[in-house]
């Protein structure tokens, strides 16, 4: 990392006392307050913060692309000698794309869906007079080559929907760097991308910007990512800067309490779940439930499980009807391709893989919401795979297999009070009880998951993400299930909330003697929570074993790739 220690860095971007206000229905809201920041020539600065910290608003303000409701209330911004606050829209436009540019999260949406990517690059080149009609195509293809797009001449004519997410992000980078600007602002550039793609994209951005001596401002929620790729890190909380430090020092000696909390909460090697919680938390482990006598057989045994989806489309149906079309066209798509594993009683099993690997399909078959194509699912001696998903709601086994969903907002009916959501499984499948007993039970469950009882009559939209996650957990454990499937239960949560929820899940498991299947893309979280891990890729299991062994000594090259893609902060 090139830290400028010998000579005072030349500030390319200088922001002083920036305050941004938004006019909302409920009055004026300050999204950013008194923010100071400097980006030196050739420097990489990260702004790190959780949702609502004002990190994205800060970057939009620098680009002067705030939406209509937002305005700069106070402060100054100077970019390369230009006063960005006073500059006219026309002056700023001349800078955008030419001197400073930006890449965004969700790359597919960031590209015009009905214009070829080559033309979109040409638009930028022509606008900044870096290409004429004669050489535009040539230069656009050169820009594609620079971001390592294979076969750039062909891709020049491609539309965004024909390219993968990672490829689209490369195009967005090519757009941003086409005019060789001095500053690149990257707003969560890898959120939503798989971990291996994330590494490739970040490596590419850093390589290109370093080679050109550009400055970079990286906006991210991931402290690890920031520390691994940036010279300096600035931490924001609720619109204010709490700390700015060199990437090396911030991990060793975080000075602000919020930074320490954030750092602690970030899952990483060499710590336990308890270490994620803020200092001074109650660390007493729960009283384990006395184990029932068992014969030692696993709770769930999955053997040669397969899920196929027929390919769709009018053309294909026609082809099928007429008996035409290649064999490949007619073969159904195998989302899960013959996998076998077991879950022991009281065990946590991690199910890991990138998007499209079949881990979610597997969990939906195990919890009997989706029918399997073939294979067996033996739960406590009964092949539950043989019971159709539609009828499983009436099976006495239903109450023993429950699930916590990925998106806590989506998993709660917006028209029902959350107390009713928790009561639903008891009403449908529990022993009949009167209103008072039901109320008492719901309150007991709320206490168990640490959900404030007085909020039980609220609607989901009146709760925070962490509170909604707790409601989802309370509903899942309401009937004392044996197996709970956790489908990325913390993916939508901020890292500090994630730390608390993970600990809660761990404690509940011990207290109630449950088994978990934990579906995740995050190996660091799996390392902390799971006893054993199954690594999936393209519908198959590439490796499984004890978490400790698999993650410290991976046998399969894919597992190794996954592990090496996790950003590691400098130690």
């Amino acid at each position, binding site marked *: 990392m090139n830290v400028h220690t010998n000579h005072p860095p030349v500030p390319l971007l200088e922001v002083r006392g920036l305050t941004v206000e938004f006019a909302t229905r409920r009055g004026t809201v300050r999204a950013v307050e008194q923010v100071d920041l400097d980006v030196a020539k050739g420097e990489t600065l990260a702004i790190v913060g959780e949702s609502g910290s004002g990190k994205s608003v800060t970057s939009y303000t620098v680009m002067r692309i705030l*939406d209509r409701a937002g305005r700069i209330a106070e402060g100054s911004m100077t970019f390369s000698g230009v006063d960005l606050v006073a500059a006219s829209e026309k002056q700023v*436009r001349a800078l955008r*794309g*030419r001197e400073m540019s930006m890449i*965004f999260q*969700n790359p597919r949406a*960031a590209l015009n869906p009905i214009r070829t990517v080559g033309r979109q690059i040409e*638009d930028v080149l022509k606008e900044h007079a870096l290409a004429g009609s004669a050489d535009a195509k040539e230069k656009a293809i050169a820009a594609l080559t620079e971001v390592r797009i294979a076969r750039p001449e062909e891709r020049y004519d491609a539309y965004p*929907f024909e390219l993968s997410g990672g490829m689209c992000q490369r195009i967005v980078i090519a*757009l941003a760097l086409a005019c060789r600007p001095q500053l690149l602002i990257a707003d969560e550039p890898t959120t939503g991308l798989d971990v291996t793609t994330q590494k490739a994209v970040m490596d590419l951005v850093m390589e290109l910007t370093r080679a050109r001596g550009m400055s970079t401002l990286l906006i991210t929620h991931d402290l690890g990512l920031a520390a691994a790729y940036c010279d300096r890190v600035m931490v924001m909380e609720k619109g204010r800067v709490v700390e700015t430090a060199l990437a090396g020092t911030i991990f060793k000696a975080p000075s602000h309490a919020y930074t320490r909390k954030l750092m602690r909460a970030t899952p990483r090697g060499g710590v336990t779940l308890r270490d994620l919680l803020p200092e001074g938390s109650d660390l007493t482990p729960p009283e384990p439930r006395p184990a029932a006598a068992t014969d030692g057989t696993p709770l769930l045994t999955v053997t040669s499980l397969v899920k196929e989806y027929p390919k769709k489309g009018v053309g294909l149906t026609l082809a099928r009807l007429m008996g035409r079309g290649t064999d490949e066209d007619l073969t159904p798509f195998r989302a899960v391709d013959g996998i076998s594993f077991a879950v022991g009683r009281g065990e946590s099993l991690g199910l890991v893989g990138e998007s499209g690997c079949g881990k979610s399909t597997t969990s939906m078959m195990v919890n009997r919401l989706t029918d399997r194509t073939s294979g067996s699912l033996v739960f406590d001696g009964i092949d539950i795979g043989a019971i159709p998903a539609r009828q499983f709601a009436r099976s006495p086994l239903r109450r023993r297999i429950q699930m916590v969903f990925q998106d806590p907002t989506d998993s709660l009916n917006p028209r029902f009070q959350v107390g009713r959501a928790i009561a639903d499984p008891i009403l449908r499948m529990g022993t009949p009880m009167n209103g008072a007993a039901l109320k008492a039970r719901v309150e007991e469950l709320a206490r168990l998951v640490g959900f404030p009882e007085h909020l039980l009559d609220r609607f989901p939209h009146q709760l925070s993400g962490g509170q909604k996650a707790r409601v989802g957990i309370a509903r899942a454990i309401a009937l004392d299930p044996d197996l709970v499937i956790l489908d990325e239960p913390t993916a939508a949560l901020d890292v500090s909330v994630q730390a608390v929820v993970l600990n809660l899940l761990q404690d509940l498991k011990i207290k109630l003697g449950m088994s978990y299947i934990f579906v995740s893309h995050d190996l660091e979280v799996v390392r902390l929570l799971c006893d054993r891990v199954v690594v999936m890729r393209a519908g198959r299991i590439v490796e499984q074993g004890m978490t400790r062994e698999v993650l410290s000594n991976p046998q399969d090259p894919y597992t190794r790739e996954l592990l090496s893609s996790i950003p590691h902060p400098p130690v």
Partner: protein
Amino acid sequence: MLGKILKRLGTVVPSLIGVVIVTFLLTRVMPGDPAAYFAGPAATPEAIEEIRRSLGLDRPLLEQFLAYVVDLAQGDLGTSLTTGLPVMHEITTRLPASAELTLLGLIVSMAIALPLGVLAAVRQGSWIDHLSRVIATAGVSLPVFFTGLLLVYVFYFILGWAPAPMGRLDFFFSDPERVTGFFLIDSLLMGDLELFRAAFSQIWLPALTLGIFSLAPITRMTRASMLAVLASDFVRTARANGLPPGKVVITYAFRNALLPIITTLGMVFSFLLGANVLVEKVFAWPGIGSYAVEALIASDFAPVQGFVLAMAILYVLLNLLIDILYGVIDPRVRIEA
């Protein structure tokens, strides 16, 4: 591309079958005895029986349907009781009058609505935005026959700028030689400017009525879809890359916004073809709409049935055209379909 259009043509077939079945069923669900209905009020029982046989109403329903389809395939829509002429002949001669009026109305409204909707979205909250909102809400509330009457009162009775609402051409003129059937075009083809002016003076008021009617939905949709596109990520990218507002609004936003607008056009056509009937009645326009209304009043069912069928086929074809247009603009449809 041609293959795709052919494939899309194939999907029209079920719609057409549905249309034919429904129009056939409409005649069979008529209360009372269709034979008595077709025979007229003064017919004797023997005459009704005779008509029943000749219409094939004594045969099974399926057989009747087949006969109906065979007639249709030969272009036979039956005969009008009041005029004694074949329905098919009347509809084909009157169709250009209706088509000319409807198209002109649509052109008028698109010419106003598209720029208005775009400006309203770009300058959200400005006076032009408020104007477009008023037009959009007030426009859909206007009963088209009432607008027509108001316009006649103002422009004919008070101002005298328009001739009496009496058809396509003043009786003083004779029809232009039929080439397209559109008087405005045919008169120009003949090089007769006087005739063109006469035809235009008759058509502008009803066309304006239809234009005002379809102004609202197109403005509304243009504004809404422009607003949605302007808030999208790729417009933000285009702005962040320093593209000028004109390029952002036209090349990036408007072309994308066109997609939902084109979809709405299907609905607009549905309303326009219906409104056309009412406008034709108000302006005594000799199109297929007023033909159907006259037949309705005379309880003459064959023309009504032929009219419903003709309108439906026209509408199905218009929707086909819209779909093809959509594919031309949207590469996702073009390549995937």
